Every structure is written in C-alpha cells, then in structure tokens.
C-alpha cells in the first residue's frame, strides 16, 4: 500500500467511520504488528491477544486523534510496544513464555542451532527461506531467536523495529521515546551483543 493510499483510508475512516477503510488499514498493518509482538513475547496466543488490543484501540480512537499517515505508523507500533511492556510486567514473575521453551516445544533442537552458528557465510545454505513461510517456518532459525531473547528488552525492540520492521531511526525514536542518536547507539550495541552471543 502506498503512503497516499494509506492516507486516504485513514482520512476516510476518520471522517465516516467506514469499516471498509478500517479493514484496509487493518490488513496492511496486522501482519507487521503481529510479527513485532510475537518476536517480543514469543507466544502465539499472547501475540494474538495483544494484536487484537492494538487494533481495538486504533478502531476506537483513531477518529478522535489528529494523525496523518506519517505519524500513524510510529503511533500504532508505540501502542503495540506499550502493550508488550504491560505483558512483560504481568508475566515477569511467572516467566512462562520464554522463547527457548517455546522453541523446544515446537521444533528447535540444539543440533540445528549449532549448524546455524558454525555455518559459513552462504545464504543458499543457511537461509533457505522463501517469502511464503508461515510463522512456524520463520521460527526455524533458533540460534538467532535465542540470541534475540537474551538481548535487553530495549535492544531487542530496536533491532526488531530496524531490521525486521524496516523502520527508520526517527520513527523508532518516536516509538521508544529516545532520540535518533540514542537509537543508533542502542542498535549498534545490540548488534555487537548479538554477534557475541551467536559467534562466541
């Protein structure tokens, strides 16, 4: 969807409350928000619940809030991030949704992880993915996900927003409430840490 198109649907929904315009916005953003949440909480059910909450908030409040399409994207990710933080707070004591546990349950095994870590730089060999992969297949990269899991929360979010969600530093700054320079620094530290975790 182009920016102009998105702008049109946002304006249309704000003006008339038209559900078809909302659905266009929803379809465009759902996969992104779901993925962002899933990578953060590592739990399908929780990701679904949080994504529903995000879009429920958008559905109910977008009409009252003065936002154009450029500000909409950081805003929706910011809502998602806040809900993820709430989720962390609620589950910090239980810690029942660790990514490691999740991967062990589904399909990851240590051998696979070692293959990833030790393999050489060869994308055809290491990353045989296509764009039509489902969630489970996307998760078949356990070492990286383990590494992400071990990063501090803020570093993990910056890395996901920058490289998975493809957002620019300015937008990320707006989402996490930091300056562009801080975001760059956090990203750099996260990359160094990730390298250390995966290749040490």
């Amino acid at each position, binding site marked *: 969807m182009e920016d102009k198109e998105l702008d049109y649907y946002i304006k249309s929904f704000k003006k008339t409350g038209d559900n078809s315009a909302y659905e266009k916005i929803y379809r465009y953003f759902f996969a992104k928000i779901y993925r962002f949440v899933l990578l953060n909480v590592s739990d399908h059910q929780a990701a679904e619940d949080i994504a529903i909450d995000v879009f429920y908030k958008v559905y109910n409040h977008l009409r009252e809030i003065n936002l154009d399409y450029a500000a909409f994207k950081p805003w929706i990710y*910011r809502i998602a991030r806040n809900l993820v933080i709430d989720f962390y707070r609620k589950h910090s004591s239980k810690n029942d949704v660790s990514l490691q546990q999740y991967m062990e349950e589904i399909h990851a095994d240590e051998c696979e992880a070692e293959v990833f870590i030790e393999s050489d730089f060869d994308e055809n060999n290491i990353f045989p993915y296509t764009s039509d*992969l489902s969630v489970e297949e996307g998760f078949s990269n356990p070492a990286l996900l383990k590494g992400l899991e071990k990063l501090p929360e803020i570093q993990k979010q910056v890395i996901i927003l920058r490289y998975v969600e493809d957002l620019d530093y300015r937008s990320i700054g707006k989402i996490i409430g930091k300056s562009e320079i801080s975001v760059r620094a956090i990203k750099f530290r996260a990359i160094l840490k990730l390298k250390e975790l995966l290749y040490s």
Partner: protein
Amino acid sequence: MKRNTDINKKILKRFYKLLDSGVAIEECLEKFPGYKDELAAYASITRNLKYLQNIKPEKTVEDYCLKMVYSKSRISNITDDKETLKRDAAIVRMRPAYLKPLVIFLGVFIFISFSFTGTIYASDDSLPGDTLYSVKRVSESVAVAFTPYKYEKSIYLKMLEERLFEAGKILNNPEYSNTEAAEKLISDIDVTFNRCCQRKYLDSGSNTYFEERVRHMKGGLHNRYRLQGPGTSG
C-alpha cells in the same frame, strides 16, 4: 590475531551506515575487501534478521482477530486509556529530531534576553563609577549603532541631557567622592556637546541653553573636585 575476533568498530559503523543508506549487504561487503571475513558474521546476522520478515500470521488468525476487534468494540464497558493514546499520538506527531535542541536554544535565548533587558533597566539610574554604569553606556552605544543616521539627533540630545542630569545628581550628592569618574563625566559632556554642535543638532535657542548648562555643570564639578580646567578659577 585480535583483528580476527574483535573487528575495528569504526569499520563496523561504516558498514552499517552503508547498509542503512540502502546499499545491499553483498555490495557493502565488497566495499570492505580487507574485512570481508569479519564482516560476514555481521552480514549474516543482519540478513537473518531480515528473514524474520517472513514471519506471517495465518489468514485465519488475521480474520479471527478482526472479528474479535469488532466484537470487542461492541462491548461498551471495556475501559480504555484514552489519554495515554492521545499523549502517544502527540509524541509521534510532535517530536521531530530538531525539537529538543530548538527548545533548549530558545530557552537560553529568552533567558539571556530577559537577563540583559533587566540589567539594562537596572543600570538606568546608575552614576559614573557605579558597576552598572558601563552597561548603561554600552546600551547607549548599541542604540546609536542601530539607529539610522537621520534619527540619531534625538538619541544624542537624550545622551547630552542624561550626562547633564548625572552631573546634577553628583553635585547634589555630598557623599559622592569618585573624582576620576567625575573627570571622565566632564570629558563625556564635552564630547557629546561638541558632537551635537558639529552635527547641528542644536538650533540657536537650544544651543545657548545647553551651552549655559554645560558650563554650569562643568564649573560645578571642577570646583567640587578641584580639578584642573576652566572651572577652577570660579
């Protein structure tokens, strides 16, 4: 050996800067042939992260969530933090990168302006030799510098009036004992009066009036502080 394990951070930063500018990972690696092996690990991580974009929910999940959003919206008693959402919107809308330094700059500028204005205002009643007197004189010079030539007349006349007023105040204050400042004031009165005469700011009537006042004040100051000059003889 250290180079193999701990790559130069500057090179790494340049590599990521290039990546951020939209250059493909392979091309970025080509730009650093000497570090290709070390950068390969970082390139691999970055590429792997990008592959996480392949994570997509099932269509059924997407549809189910949409239904849930609509059904949740129909339940009216769900409490929601509207204010937080509005604040979030204001943050994403209002916070460009330059805003913080701009606010700091404006704050400092306003603070300095107010302080300076206050100091000038406070220096208005100062006499030669006072701490703030130099501020008063500087503000007069600034006023002259920023006034067009044809409007300078009123400023010079005001300055002459001010110097004579200061001389009068000194003469009326028996405790004033700064001889050096008084001597300087006499020369200032001379300079200002001469400038007014040279530029023909004084017509014949006001010329006589000011000449008389200048002579009177100078004489008074010379006598009071026993300075060398025309007034000493009385």
